[in-house]
């Protein structure tokens, strides 16, 4: 039987993969996917703790995160489409006009 530590290990791995993707990749679309990955890694650790402690609080958090992630995805996909329509590129380094 996998225990708490296994779940947490997978969660941490997923989180760092997502973070690496967010930092390293230049495609905005992929960066959003990485963020989703990080969110779900956190979800996994919430669920694992929830099971481990026999409490429902973690579940509630997860539901909220899923709901917000869904709405965020809807908005961000729309943003990505608009950005592409305007600039014919999704390379994040090209969007550098707002600076001090």
């Amino acid at each position: 039987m996998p225990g708490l530590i296994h779940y947490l290990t997978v969660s941490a791995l997923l989180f760092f993969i997502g973070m690496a993707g967010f930092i390293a990749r230049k495609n905005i679309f992929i960066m959003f996917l990485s963020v989703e990955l990080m969110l779900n890694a956190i979800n996994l650790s919430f669920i694992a703790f929830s099971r481990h402690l026999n409490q429902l609080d973690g579940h509630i958090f997860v539901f909220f995160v899923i709901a917000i992630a869904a709405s965020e995805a809807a908005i961000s996909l729309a943003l990505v489409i608009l950005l592409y329509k305007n600039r014919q590129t999704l390379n994040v380094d090209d969007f550098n006009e707002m600076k001090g």
Partner: protein
Amino acid sequence: MHTEHATTTLAISLQSNWLLSMVVLLPFLGALLLGLLTLSQVKNEQGPSEKLVGLLGTAFPALAAILALFLFAQQLSQGELVWHHTLASWLETSRFSIDFAFMMDHLSGLMAVMITFIGTLIHIFSIAYMHGDRGFARYFTYLNLFLGSMLLLILSDNLVGLFMGWEGVGVCSFLLIGFWFDDPAKAGAGTKAFVVNRIGDFGFILGIIFLFWNTQHFDYTGIQSAIQNLSPTQINTIAFLLLVGALGKSAQIPLHVWLPDAMAGPTPVSALIHAATMVTAGVYLIARMHFLYELSPSVSMLIVLIGSLTAFVAATIALVQTDIKKVLAYSTVSQLGYMFMGVGAGAYAAGIFHVFTHAFFKAALFLGAGAVIHCLHHEQSLLKMGGLRKKMPVTHAVMLISCLAIAGIPPLAGFFSKDEILLALWDKGLFVFWTLGLLTAGLTAFYMFRLYYLTFAGDYRGESEVSTEPFLMKLPLGLLAIGAALAGLLGLPGSYNWISGWLAPAVGAHHPTASPTVMGGLMLISVAFAGVGIGIARSRYKNFALPYTAPTGPLANMLQNKYGFDLLYENVIVEPLRKLGRFGWTIADRLLIDGAITAGTWVYRVLGLSLKQLQFGNLRAYAHYLIFGVFMLAYLYFMRHMPEVFRL
């Protein structure tokens, strides 16, 4: 509280004492109405209709005059009657209360009737004088406001109310001197009057505070009963501080410099405010506080000294003035000096009597001068007048009567009141001041008839066409001339002195001890001095012709420079203050304060310039910041709360 006093009098006083408050409120109401009317028409080039404004502006003072006369007539018929009315409570604390309460005793009754009556006449005169002026409605607003403030000053039953009126008339004086404010000189004259008055008012405020500190009372009756327990030092201090206020308002040396400059205002204003009413407020204050000054002989002597110096100095300056209004202005200062001599010598009734007669003949003189100026199209120089006797017969007659009255020729008004004051000085044994007063009387007769002959005798020396004075000018002039001729009969010398007996309940009785022979002799001497003055003026100016050679020599120069008061104040007070101001502006403000703030902005500018380098627009870099920050926060959190994590 005060109405309990009034219950001792007949029932009629209970029913109609609210009229007393109306006397004060009516002019304020007029000012409010006219002010709103002025504001509503401010975009209109013509302004509100002159007929409407003139009617409204004169109706309220006239109503107040009728009411005041009605109340005064009740007093006349009932002897000891004193009107009281508490309009509203203003301040209530556990230690004291101040009401909007009015009191009309024999003193304030006489003053109120005089002020409303002369005020109404001057309002009527103003309709003609200010005709066609762009500020017609504004002028009447201020004039009504002035009249209300003056009545508040006179009729209040406590010093706080009097002070409010005192400041109110000061503001109106400032507004009306600077009435034509687009001329910097005139606006400056208004400011000068205001600033000099503030100096006096400062002493006045201190006096009121000190008085309250020691007596716990603001109302006259309370003060009068509590003051007996004070030490002479306290009484002298209070008397001196209140005197400082009176000196400022009544233009006595050393605070007299504002009044001649105040002639920048319209001439009816000079007649009403700077001759007949406001400037006599200082005399009224001293008469009102007579119980204080009776206990302070040293301050009373100071009043006589200042009064006689002022009377003499101002009379000498008036000798060399060539502006008709300036002569009258210095004459006013000089006559105010007379009043101060009277109240300083303990003859409070005589001082007030001179206030009363002076109001008539000086208002007539100023309005006469106003008519002359009006008909000569704003020419004020005596050198460009002359020969107006035939062209302006009414004004000529009025001016002649008033000049005779101020010169002290019997049986006209000025003779009796001036004589009363001189007699009081003689009685007290103040022969030096009596001599000064007598000399002043001679000088007064001389410069007034110099003015008279230069204006009316000889040939016309001006260029502009002389128009005739309108009816609205002749009417008040004639009524005032009657007053100037007859007002003196209220105070015939000896036991026929009605006014002295009338004022006795309010300001105390004063019985001259001189024998009838001495009194007669003194009168003869003063009439002789006046006659000599008139005679010299007649011989020198009856057939005056240009060119005018200004008198030269050290004495004349000193007079031309007005004894150097203005120069002295300019160099000793104004210029150092101006330097201090300039120092404050360049060094303290611009260098130190502005410098510190500019330096402060540079710190933030440098900080901003360096920190903005971090925000260079690359999203992935921001992601690095974010993650770095989260890790730092997590590290700090674990360090603090679970340090064992790092020991694994």
